[in-house]
C-alpha cells in the first residue's frame, strides 16, 4: 500500500466478536459409500501419473 494512502489512527477498528464455540458433530451414521472399494481401486493406476503444466 502506498504510504500516502495510510491514515492512522483516526478510527476505532470494529471489535472482533467472541469466537464461536467449536463442537464437532459425529460423522454421518451411515456412510453412503460403504460399498465402493472396487470403484475407488480402479483409479489407483492414475495416482502416480504426472500431467503437463497448463493454463
Amino acid at each position, binding site marked *: *500500500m*502506498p504510504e500516502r*494512502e*495510510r*491514515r*492512522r*489512527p*483516526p*478510527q476505532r*477498528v*470494529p471489535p*472482533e*466478536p467472541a*469466537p*464461536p*464455540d*467449536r*463442537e*464437532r*458433530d*459425529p*460423522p*454421518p451414521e451411515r*456412510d*453412503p*459409500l460403504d460399498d*465402493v472399494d472396487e*470403484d*475407488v*481401486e*480402479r*483409479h*489407483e*493406476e*492414475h*495416482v*502416480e*501419473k*504426472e*500431467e*503437463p*503444466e*497448463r*493454463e
Partner: protein
Amino acid sequence: MPNPARPAMVMGLETEYSIYARGQSRTAPAKDGGQLKEMVDALIAEAFTDPLFTGPQLMVTHGQPHGLGWLHNGARLYNDMHSTPEYCTPECPRPDILVAHDQAGMLIEWRASLLAAQQLGYEIDLYKKNTDGHGHAYGCHENYCVSTRLWNKLFKGDVNLHQLIMATFFVVRPILTGAGKVGVENAVRTQPFQLSQRAEFISTFRSQITTSNRPILNERNEPHANADYWQRVHYIMGDANMCEASTYLKTGLTALMFMLLQDERNPGFHLPILDGQYPPMAHTVSLDPQFEARLPVQFATRDALYDTGTLPAPEILSRYLGRLAEYVQERPFQDAGEQAVYADVVARAQEYLATLRTGKIHRLYGVLDWPTKYALLENFLGKRGKTFADAAADDELRKKMRVYADHAFCSLDRERGLYFRLERAGHITRIVNDAQVLKATFQPPAGRPQLRTLLTDRFVGKIKDVDWAKVNIRSASGKSVTLKLNDPMLTVDDALIREIEGAKSPYELIQSIRRTNRTQIEIEE
C-alpha cells in the same frame, strides 16, 4: 413480452479436465503426448458430432468436425495445449444459470469420453481437479465482465485499495469454495489435508503470467467486448468444484464483490484487508482447516486504511459477507429475480460459514466440496483405525487417500464416480435440477450466447468464423460481413429474434438492422 432486463453481471468458467487412458500405460501423460492428444481429439470430435449437443445446424455450419469449437449452447470446447478437453461455459447472466452450464459441461465431457473410448478401443477416465498431486497445476478459470474503469483500477498502476480488497477476498474465499485435497505439493510438509487445490500454487500478487509465478490478480487483457466500456476479469486461482453449491457461492460472491467495487454510487467498504505478503497468507488459509491461524489486517474504507491487529481468516470472510448482505439490499437490481438469487448466495454463504466456524464440518457433507471430502476421508481413515494425524506421517496412507478423494470423488463417471454416487443417494445439495442441466447442454443462456446461436442457426452453411464477440458470415457475393456483438451484457428481445429468423439472407438482415438501429449488433463490412 417486455424487453428483458440487462443483467448486473455476466460470468463464465473455463475448466481444464484431467484425462487418462485406462490400462494403457503407467507412464505420465506428459511423456505420452501422442496418446493424450489422441484422446482429447477423439473426445472433442465425438462431442461435435453428437446432435444432442451441437444440433445438426451447427455441424453443417462449421463444415468440419470441431472446426470452430462452438457448441449450440454457446460454450466452447477445444483441445488446449494438446493435453486437455477444455470446456468454457457461455457467458451466464446469473450464478445459478452458470451452475447449470458448468454441470452441463461435465455431462457433455463424460458422454463424449464414452463415445471416444468406443472409437479408440480403450477406456478413458476424466476428472474435474486442479493438480496431479505431483506439483503440476491446471486451471478452472473464472471470467467476470466488469467496467473498464474498475478493470483499470484492479490491473493498472500502483497497488491500491481496490486491488487489496479483491485480493483479500480471494485469499479467504477458499474457506467456503475450496475443492479440498490431500497433502501438500509445493513444500516439504506432510500436512494430510488442505482446503484449496490451487492456493499453494499462488506465488505473486499481480502479473500477466499464468503457467508459472501464478498471481492472485491476473492482468490478462482480452475483453471480448468494446473495451471502452467493458473488460473481462480473468481469475485463475480458483478451484474446480464438483458440488453445485461451491460453484454457486464461488461465482455469486465474486460477482457481487465486483458489483460493489464498480458501483458508481461509491458505496462504502469498511472491510479488513490483509497486511503483508499475500501469497504466503493464501497458503496459510488453505493449510488451516481448523481455522487456528490469525492474519495481520488493516481496515479499508472508501479511500483510506487504518491500522489494526490480526483476525482469523473466517472472521475476515465473515466481514466481507456482512458487507455483501447489505449491498444486495441497497443495490438497485433491474430484475427482482436476479436480486433474489444474489441474496440467496449471500444467505447460504453466511449460514455455511457459521456452521464451519462452530466445527460442525459434517453438516456441510454433500453441500460444499472440501467439507464433503474431509468427512469422506474421516470415514475412510476411521474404517482403517487411522486418523488425519496418522496420515501426516504415512506416505502410503496419503496416497490411498488421494485415490479416494482426489480421483474417485471427482471422477466424471456418472455410474461409479463417488460424487455422482452421493448425488444418486440424495446426499448432494442441488442448486439446479437435472432438467435444467440437460437443457443447458443444448440451449444457450439468454443474452449474447443466445444471439450467437440464433445467428449461426439462421445462416447455416454461411458461417465463416465465430468468436465471443462476433459472427462472421459469407454473403452471396462471396464477401464476408462481420456482425460484432461487442456488448457482453446485451439482451435479446422478441423483435430481434423475429428479425433474425425472418431474414432470408445476411444482406436482408444487415439492411433490417440498419433500419431499426439495433444496438446489439454492429456491422463491419
